[in-house]
């Protein structure tokens, strides 16, 4: 049993104007607004690293207030990133543990996943709560792609932004807005690994067509299968929060569910595609709306990897 109780976010104040950025590639305002969705792309400040964003998100949680436990009561820290501090050794979660002043007794490890990482992370957090000594798990997403973006590549330079989020998942509901973490569905297909990868020069490569193909066909099937596993209809979900890859991808997926298409949320104007952070950035608002009893979350991307689960009001 696991309950998502609190979510906090940190978005760097330094941003790139994506409308100006798009002019370099001859793309117009309509394309950026309607197809990509990202008007601003937040960027790490000079001298900042992944762990700094992660610690800032953790520090934004209401520790010791509003039902939130103290930092010392965090038993496990999971950091979802593929762009950690330095060269990836030591693991970024160890650096985050220190910067956020978490207990030395905390279980801390990194999870190497991209845009499916938050949903996978919820499943892992829930599993960790089966350990007798673990009562509170901190799930952090922080994958600043600005470290690996080729600014001359039109496929990726207009999409990705930097951000971090911190979610507290606990054995019990700790407030009136807690969401119970359901049993999700997860998928992996390494045959598509080459479509989204870091090249030998260290920069990001994305085959946009293949990623679009994958997301718009595989994800709707998993969502339908998840609804089927619960024995519920698409109309029984109050909000669909999908990874915000681009507005075009959300539109292509939501079109498969015409009866509830308006329930598929889109929100990446101020942040862009922040990889594993897009879903919790949106959930941070939706968790407060108690009229939403069931929220379906679905992440998909590098791997290829995809995962969906349902969060239910407790």
């Amino acid at each position, binding site marked *: 049993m696991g309950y998502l109780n609190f979510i906090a976010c940190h978005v760097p104040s330094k941003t790139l104007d994506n409308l100006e950025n798009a002019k370099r590639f001859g793309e117009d305002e309509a394309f950026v607004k309607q197809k990509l969705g990202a008007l601003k792309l937040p960027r790490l400040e000079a001298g900042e690293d992944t762990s700094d964003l992660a610690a800032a998100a953790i520090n934004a949680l209401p520790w010791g207030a509003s039902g939130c436990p103290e930092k010392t009561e965090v038993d496990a820290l999971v950091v979802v990133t593929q762009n950690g501090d330095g060269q990836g050794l030591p693991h970024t979660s160890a650096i985050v543990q220190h910067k956020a002043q978490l207990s030395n007794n905390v279980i801390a490890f990194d999870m190497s996943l991209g845009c499916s990482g938050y949903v996978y992370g919820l499943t892992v957090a829930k599993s960790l709560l089966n350990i007798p000594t673990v009562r509170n798990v901190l799930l952090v997403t922080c994958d600043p792609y600005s470290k690996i973006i080729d600014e001359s590549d039109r496929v990726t330079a207009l999409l990705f932004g930097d951000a971090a989020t911190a979610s507290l998942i606990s054995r019990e509901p700790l407030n009136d807005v807690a969401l119970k973490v359901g049993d999700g569905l997860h998928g992996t297909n390494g045959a598509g690994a080459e479509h989204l990868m870091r090249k030998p020069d260290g920069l990001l490569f994305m085959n946009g067509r293949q990623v679009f*193909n994958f997301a718009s066909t595989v994800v709707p099937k998993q969502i339908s299968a998840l609804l089927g596993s619960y024995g519920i209809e698409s109309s029984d979900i109050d909000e669909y929060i999908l990874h915000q890859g*681009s507005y075009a991808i959300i539109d292509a997926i939501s079109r498969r569910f015409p009866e509830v298409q308006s329930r598929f949320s889109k929100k990446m104007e101020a942040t862009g595609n922040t990889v594993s952070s897009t879903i919790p950035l949106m959930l941070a608002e939706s968790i407060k709306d108690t009229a939403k009893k069931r929220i379906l979350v679905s992440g998909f991307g590098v791997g290829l990897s995809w995962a969906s689960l349902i969060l239910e009001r407790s």
Partner: protein
Amino acid sequence: MKITEEQLRGFLQTAASSIDHKNIALTANLSDSGLDSLDIYDLIVMTQEHCGIEIPDADLSNLKTLGSILDYCNKSA
């Protein structure tokens, strides 16, 4: 499964709703007709699913018009 011109134009309308698909000739370059790269990805996904085929990246560069997509898919399906 084969695809008709009418079905393909229906997919085009879905993929690029702001474009008047009736005015795009079979021989017209889709990019020159106002479709962006994401519109074309979307059109190809719907067409692939309808025909039950997968169009390799290498072949996609030859499919720049509605006519070439029809010919390719109906030979492959």
